[in-house]
């Protein structure tokens, strides 16, 4: 029950952060909605890679299962979105923009995977300190 609540609350906050990312990226950098979806997916993948490794079995941080699920399944899961990425790709292709559709999904996937890997590599550099 606690885990479900933790995931729900994390996902709610993640979804709101995703919703607010679009107008922020537009106001700050003039980037449109495709960039916003790409941004949340890459950023969320980086955070989950970093956090999962830091709090993993031989990570540096020991956190409660509910905290781990709040951040990973909750916040990161709610922040990132597979459905918007797929729908955007489908719409681009249906409108005849095949090249943009292919570049969009290819880059989204490649950068998300690179980001989760980078998060993990970064977290592995903070190995637990061995106490005497």
């Amino acid at each position, binding site marked *: 029950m606690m885990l479900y609540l933790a995931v729900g609350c994390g996902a709610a906050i993640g979804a*709101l952060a995703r919703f607010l990312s679009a107008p922020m990226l537009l106001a700050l950098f003039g980037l449109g909605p495709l960039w916003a979806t790409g941004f949340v997916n890459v950023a969320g993948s980086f955070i989950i890679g970093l956090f999962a490794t830091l709090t993993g079995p031989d990570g540096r941080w020991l956190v409660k299962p509910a905290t781990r699920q709040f951040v990973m399944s909750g916040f990161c899961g709610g922040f990132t979105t597979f*459905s918007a990425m797929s729908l955007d790709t489908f719409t681009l292709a249906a409108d005849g923009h095949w090249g943009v559709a292919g570049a969009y999904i290819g880059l989204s996937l490649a950068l998300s995977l690179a980001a989760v890997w980078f998060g993990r590599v970064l977290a592995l550099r903070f190995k637990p300190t061995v106490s005497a």
Partner: protein
Amino acid sequence: MVLDFAACMLVLAGGFLGGILRFTISGAVARRIGETFPWGTLVVNVTGDMVIGGLAGTVATAGGALATAAFREFAIVGVLGGYTTVSSFALQTLSLAVQGEPRRAALNVVGSTALGLAAVGIGFALAARLLA
């Protein structure tokens, strides 16, 4: 940037529901089929893609009540955005890769993407056909 309080509440509520739905369904699938391959996340992402395709097809064909901002904020940004996830997908792909399962990792990427895009198309076509 003007923040619409009601819109934020709709996204929060939708994200909460979507996150819990994802956690419940992906967990149930993983328990039933096993966790050697991330079937749970795949099932969530593909079903979410089918629903978002169906909603897009409904809006394109019938328009009306579903074309409102409130519906988009609650159902598409909130529930479906919170339900589907790129972060878990990326993390599980990385886990397969670092556990010496590069073929399964590649299969997860190609399979999730191909099935997801096909699901958007099927959902869209179904909605368009049923409502035409």
